[in-house]
């Protein structure tokens, strides 16, 4: 049988201010019918550009050379996407190849019903009456697992949940039964429990529709879960291509090895945590804790008299000195809110939260200011956590100046240099502006700023979620080192169990504002008691195809039970 797509020596160049930039460099690959090919790589590796080339969706500033031969599902005809006319290309899209986008909420037009949008795709390709198109839309919605498709077909996108939206997007891709679906990070925007469901659906696409899938992802767990074959890209080139089993068990290229090595595994942190616990002083438990939350409740005020939204609902925990508490939960679980409340950024509306003995319920900025010098905060988004108009050195010196430890940023420079070195940044970086640093570098600098006053409590809100996996590994490692060196207590917030596991002494799991489980890594990850924790854990794909296949079975059982 012919390949559904064959890419030969593809080169894609973008014209930029700084001259031409080569995004894809001599890539050749092929996808067999019914095969799932994963393209893996980090930011800027060219994987998305490669995928978009298959649909001819490159922007006008891009120049593509080479050949992308696309064949129809039945193999009756094939075309070079880079050479065909616009008209022909339009016909190919949707019938021979279609696409699933990363962010389902932006991939659906908010002002048209999903049925209309599906039908539009159908009617763009041939003679269908409105009725026929609608019937087809209902059918496909049913097949991707949307309950009650007859009425849901007239819903607008915002009436669906995130996971359902992605199902709709997949339905649109499937409706004309193309031979190939290009899925660009289809689960990245979704919570891990939803991710598992979407991966199941994609698997069904392959199995039931016989559709080949090009899966673009940076998540090795997803690759292990779904892919038959894997292509690893690095700086626009393919560095390794192998069957999934082979790649995970026996990576050849250095980069692949590094990549796989960077992936955090659940359970790896447990030993470290117990070692740390063993090293603590005997009366450690009896010392005054740094943070105590007692039936903490945080409610956002409703607008214009509407009832408020309770983000945190009766949460209790303690953080002792030198201890790292990992806070895990999905979107909207309230984990970030707790972190912000500890930093005095969000008002506590009920219960009690004491930080360094200071009660945050009924918080007064003036009284809290002294305590602030003892709290460091690392934010989630490295892109926005620095004032773009100040140099890194000025930013890092800010806490020193605010708290009177230095008269001005210049006077603080010596200390800033020490801090930069502590986070393993060259001191010359102090003179750069934030946008001149990469995400990982900025997150290091952010850490340096948080540590400037040597706080005894650090709050880290998803500090690595915006980073590539290899960068994440390095930052996490640095965090661990520094925590060991400075000995501060920390609240480490993340949606990723594996990441929390690396650093945390204890792990707390939040679900819809409530604390469902708390304990050491061994307790929570090793033998979760709460069904939500169990499902969360089971949904997390592991970067090992064989192991993942087993876990998939477990998850099915869990779901059936729950």
């Amino acid at each position, binding site marked *: 049988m012919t390949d559904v797509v064959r890419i030969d020596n593809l080169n894609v160049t973008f014209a930029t201010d700084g001259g031409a930039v080569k995004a894809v460099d001599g890539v050749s690959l092929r996808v067999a019918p019914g095969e799932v090919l994963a393209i893996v790589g*980090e930011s*800027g590796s060219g994987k998305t550009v490669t995928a978009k080339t298959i649909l001819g969706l490159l922007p006008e500033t891009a120049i593509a050379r080479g050949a992308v031969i696309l064949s129809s599902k039945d193999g009756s005809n094939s075309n070079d996407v880079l050479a065909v006319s616009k008209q022909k290309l339009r016909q*190919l899209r*949707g019938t021979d190849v279609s696409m699933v986008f990363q962010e389902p909420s932006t991939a659906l*037009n908010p002002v048209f*019903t999903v049925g209309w949008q599906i039908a539009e795709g159908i009617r763009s390709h041939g003679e269908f009456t409105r009725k026929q198109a609608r019937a087809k839309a209902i059918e496909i919605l049913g097949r991707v697992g949307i309950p009650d498709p007859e009425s849901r077909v007239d819903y607008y996108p*915002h009436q669906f949940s995130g996971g359902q939206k992605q199902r709709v997007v997949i339905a649109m891709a499937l409706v004309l039964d193309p031979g190939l679906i290009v899925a660009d990070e289809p689960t990245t925007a979704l919570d891990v429990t939803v991710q598992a469901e979407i991966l199941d659906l994609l698997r069904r696409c392959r199995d039931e529709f016989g559709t080949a899938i090009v899966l673009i992802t940076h998540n090795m767990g997803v690759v292990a879960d779904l892919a038959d074959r894997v292509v690893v890209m690095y700086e626009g080139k393919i560095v390794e291509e192998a069957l999934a089993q082979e790649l995970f068990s026996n990576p050849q290229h250095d980069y692949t090895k590094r990549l796989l090595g960077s992936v955090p595994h659940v359970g790896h942190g447990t030993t470290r945590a117990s070692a740390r616990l063993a090293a603590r002083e005997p009366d450690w438990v009896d010392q005054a804790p740094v943070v105590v939350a007692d039936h903490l409740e945080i409610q956002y005020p409703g607008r214009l008299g509407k009832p408020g*939204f309770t983000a945190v609902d009766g949460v209790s925990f303690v953080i002792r000195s030198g201890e790292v508490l990992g806070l895990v939960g999905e979107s909207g679980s309230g984990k970030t809110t707790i972190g*912000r409340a500890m930093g005095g*950024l969000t008002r506590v509306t009920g219960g009690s939260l004491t930080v360094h003995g200071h009660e945050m319920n009924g918080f007064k900025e003036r009284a809290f200011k002294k305590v602030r010098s003892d709290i460091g905060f690392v934010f989630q988004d490295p892109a926005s956590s620095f004032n773009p108009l100040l140099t890194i050195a000025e930013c890092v010196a800010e806490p020193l100046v605010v708290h009177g430890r230095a008269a001005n940023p210049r006077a603080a420079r010596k200390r800033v240099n020490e801090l930069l070195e502590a986070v393993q940044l060259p001191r010359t970086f102090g003179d750069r502006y934030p946008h001149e640093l990469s995400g990982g570098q900025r997150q290091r600098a952010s850490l340096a700023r948080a540590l400037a006053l040597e706080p005894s409590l650090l709050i880290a809100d998803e500090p690595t979620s915006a980073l590539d996996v290899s960068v994440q590994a390095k930052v996490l490692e640095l965090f661990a080192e520094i925590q060991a060196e400075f000995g501060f207590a920390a609240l480490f917030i993340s949606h990723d169990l594996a990441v929390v596991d690396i650093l945390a002494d204890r792990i707390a799991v939040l679900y819809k504002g409530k604390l469902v489980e708390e304990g050491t890594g061994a307790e929570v990850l090793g033998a979760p008691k709460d069904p939500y924790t169990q499902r969360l854990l089971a949904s997390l794909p592991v970067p090992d195809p064989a192991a993942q296949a087993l876990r998939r079975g477990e998850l099915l059982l869990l779901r059936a039970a729950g």
Partner: protein
Amino acid sequence: MTTVAVKPSVPVGGRVSKKKTSPGGGIGRYLLIRFLLIFPTIFILVSMVFWLMRTTGDPITAALGGKLPPEQLAERIQAAGYDRPIIVQYFEYLGQVFTGNFGTTISTNRPVSEVLLTYGSATAELVFYALIVAFVIGIPLGMVAAYWRDKAPDAFLRVFAILCYATPVFFAGLLLKLVFAVWLNVLPVAGRSTTGSELQLQLLPNPTGIYTIDALRTGDPAVLGDVLAHAVLPGVALGLLTAGVFLRLVRTNVIGTLGTDYVDAARSRGVNEFRLVSKHAYRPALIPIITVIGLQIALLLGGAVLTETTFEWQGLGFMLIEFIKARDFVAVQGIVALLAVIVALSNFIVDIIAALIDPRVRY
């Protein structure tokens, strides 16, 4: 970089609530709040104009300053009560406005409500024609410009749009008048109708003041033709100003939506480029466009002042300037209040339309 951006799966803290509450709140409640906001708007404008007007002089001096000796002038000012503390007059005035009594104009001794009705209908008619011109020209051309983005037609249309609003309405009106009324002699110079037609219109029982409607009621095609002919140049002059704004607005927003994922998604389903512009990009773009169009009402009314002056179109804006010059602040207050109501109402209506178009508000 969109490709990998390991998406923060969590919206950052405080924003959670905003996102969650908006669709569920119910369109009725939302519209009620918008409606209630009309009142402070009117109150603020009316108060502001009252104070501004009253610090600039009293109407008696304006009318008789040159004619009367100062003593008599002072006597009359006193008799009319304009020498009392302004604050007293202010509350008195507010009380009147509150009861819907706009009083009688000082300079022409006519009930303000009647003035508003007469001149308001003229302005409404002018604005109506201008909006038609603006919509007919601005919106399709905006889509054309977005479709040919950064190509020659786009550049041409953008310069056209800028010229539309770079040309002061009175200058544009002057050129239009010269060409169509004087050189080509196909359209009337100014006014709302010829005297003959107007006399016929005056004979109607209960004239609406909107000449087009009145002309239809006479059933005389000559009158209708005459009235419509008079509306062409003012409508075009004011309409072009707004058309430029609309053109740009449509272009910007359609281009903005053309860059969204869902347009790319539709493209990936093989939807053709024309449909991408006319359906996928246009409809979502319409929501901000409509909101801004609401704000354009103010621009339109401002332009109407100049248009009315240029084309003898006796409307509110024109009268407002007359009354300002005469310091007839009773009349000015009334007109301002009406304009404020119009502006606030049109924004309110626009909100309703935008809400109706946006399914996320509707459901």
